[in-house]
């Protein structure tokens, strides 16, 4: 078992709130990734769970037991540090066996378990070496070995891959996935790397400024970001975010900005409001021929190509649209050159709207008289109503 519950966990340093009332329920066997930019409080949150920092408020429960004030040693949690924190004076075998020796496990048992873990992590030939004689990847595996030898209720990992090069990171990600499947343990994993988060997590908790911004599966967080912050954090390049305005014209609800025209659905009942229009770069594509922007027309963004980047399999183009810079990417070659005027479009399903002031996602709820299938077809016009917040029915998650 290894269910971790955080209940309004808060950490203040004077006037600075590092972690602001975070509540999370991490199920047994779950791989939950705390994702956010540097300084968002994710490592502090992990250390609060580990017991290395005392919280200013809130509770931490492990399998229903309140461990808020229990010392780290009594929490039955193992941690892998960003720096690996291997004991420099001990061999790999003694590093891995360190927690068992602390628990006064018999020597023979320690040796047996160390050999088991070393075999699992392919560390067998390195057992007599010291940390300074290991490569980055090997040190990282020793750190993981030291964590798993205790068979803890849950693992806490603080950016364990951040010191590895790109290739090794990819290989280690795959190892982590396999290890998680093999051990079936709960993992609370901190990273600022969205690729790590999206590829490893069963759920992602996005943090910003100490607050929980969104909690969901990688698909949910990527496809239906709860806020401008989440939308702008995930994706490479991240979602294009343009200041726009929702208005009703001639019986149509439209999103308008300089050189941007998006026809949403027929209606007059939506109150005009300032919004942020979001479109992922990979969802934009060139308009084959400029169709009508009128009723039922495709969303249209007109601009001028500023630069084209070769990303290997794909190309990314930066286009000046109105006063903003819009990225779009597609299979190489895109056939574009700097200075070329372009018209871009996307499916209505890929339009995201956020409130300009709160930054929160605006969801639109389909009206009851329209069948669900209509909303997934660009040929049909989904009549809908615009709502604040993400708790309402969201298009792309249906």
């Amino acid at each position: 078992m290894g269910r971790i519950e955080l209940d309004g966990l808060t950490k203040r340093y004077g006037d600075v709130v590092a972690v602001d009332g975070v509540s999370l329920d991490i199920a047994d066997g779950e791989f939950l990734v705390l994702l956010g930019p540097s300084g968002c409080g994710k490592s502090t949150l992990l250390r609060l769970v580990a017991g290395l920092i005392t919280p200013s408020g809130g509770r931490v429960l492990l399998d229903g037991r309140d461990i808020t004030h229990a010392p780290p040693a009594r929490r039955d949690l193992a941690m892998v540090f960003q720096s690996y924190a291997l004991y420099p004076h001990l061999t790999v075998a003694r590093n891995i066996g360190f927690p068992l020796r602390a628990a006064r496990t018999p020597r023979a048992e320690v040796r047996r378990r160390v050999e088991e873990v070393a075999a699992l992590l392919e560390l067998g030939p390195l057992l007599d070496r010291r940390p300074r004689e290991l490569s980055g990847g090997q040190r990282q595996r020793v750190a993981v070995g030291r964590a798993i030898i205790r068979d803890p209720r849950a693992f806490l990992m603080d950016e364990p891959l951040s010191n590895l090069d790109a290739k090794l990171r990819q290989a280690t990600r795959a190892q982590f996935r396999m290890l998680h499947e093999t051990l079936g343990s709960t993992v609370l994993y901190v990273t600022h790397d969205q690729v790590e988060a999206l590829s490893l997590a069963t759920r992602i908790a996005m943090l910003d400024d100490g607050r929980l911004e969104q909690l969901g599966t990688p698909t949910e967080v990527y496809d239906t970001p709860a806020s401008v912050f989440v939308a702008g954090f995930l994706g490479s390049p991240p979602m294009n975010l343009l200041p726009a305005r929702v208005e009703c014209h001639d019986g149509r609800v439209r999103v308008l900005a300089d050189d941007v025209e998006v026809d949403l659905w027929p209606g007059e009942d939506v109150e005009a409001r300032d919004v942020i229009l979001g479109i992922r770069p990979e969802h934009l594509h060139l308009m084959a021929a400029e169709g009508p922007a009128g009723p039922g027309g495709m969303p249209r963004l007109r601009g001028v190509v500023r630069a084209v980047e070769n990303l290997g399999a794909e190309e990314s183009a930066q286009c000046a649209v109105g006063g903003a810079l819009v990225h779009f990417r597609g299979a190489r070659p895109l056939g574009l050159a700097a200075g070329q005027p372009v018209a871009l479009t996307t499916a209505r399903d890929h339009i995201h709207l956020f409130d300009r002031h709160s930054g929160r996602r605006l969801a639109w709820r389909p009206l009851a008289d329209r069948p669900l299938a209509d909303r997934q077809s660009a040929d049909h016009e989904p009549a809908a109503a615009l709502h604040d917040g993400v708790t309402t029915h969201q298009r792309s998650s249906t």
Partner: protein
Amino acid sequence: MAVAETTAPAPARGEPSAVADLAGETGARVWLRTAVGHGVLAALSLACIFPIYWMYATSLRRPEEVYNVSLFPWPLSVGNYTHVWDVIPIGRLILNTFAVAALISVGQLLVGLLAAYAFTAWRFRGQTLLYLAFVGTWLVPFQVTMLPNYTLLYRLGLLNTLAGVIVPNLASALGVLLLRQHMASFPRDLLDAARMDGRSSWSILWTVVVPNLRAPLAALSIVLFINAWNDYFWPALVLQRADSVVQLGLRGLFVGVEGPDWGGLMAGSGLACLPIFGIYLLLQRHVVGAFVRSGLK
């Protein structure tokens, strides 16, 4: 074609010579800088080593030749050493001094280690004030504490005992200060990892911190041991007899009214220096490279 053949080699001939000049200039300058640097270091080394050499050289001359200023003592003689051995209990004096210096340095190391660990591993009320009080004792001249300490020793009945020399010297601000600086830069993650791995604070100190602070501990041990070994005034005040520690033994027997017995003095001093050299040779191999960070990143 002919023009091309005649003009083309010209720069080719010129370029290497320009490069050679440049390389020659740079090489000469580097050589000069290296030579001056080595010269200064050699002069400093000589200034440090010569008095020690002269001490052993004089001690190895025949007793009647101690005023001979030839650079190399010849023929060699151990007459001064046997004289010292006969006149004073040099073995016991060195043993006593060694015990005193060892206990004082171990005590100061232990106090320094525990205090520095407390100052760095925990945050507590009045921490800075207490630390300043510790370090502030360094600023108090010995003469200020000398009389109160002496009175206290008298009351405790420790005058004229080796314990009287040791006990007031068991804590040192130097040890606390130096070890605190080292512990402040000790990787915090290692301490946290040990806590996560189930170690108590006491266990972390001895199984994680101390093994990784061997270099500074060894360096500090040498300094503390030499300080204690060289201390003259306090043992002279407390012990008041010449047959206790080597500093007093040498003074009592060789600095007499007939003038110093240089041969005996040099031989005695030479013997008194041996434990210091031994300690240095023993610990200096630990004073190499801080490898604490090798387990990180």
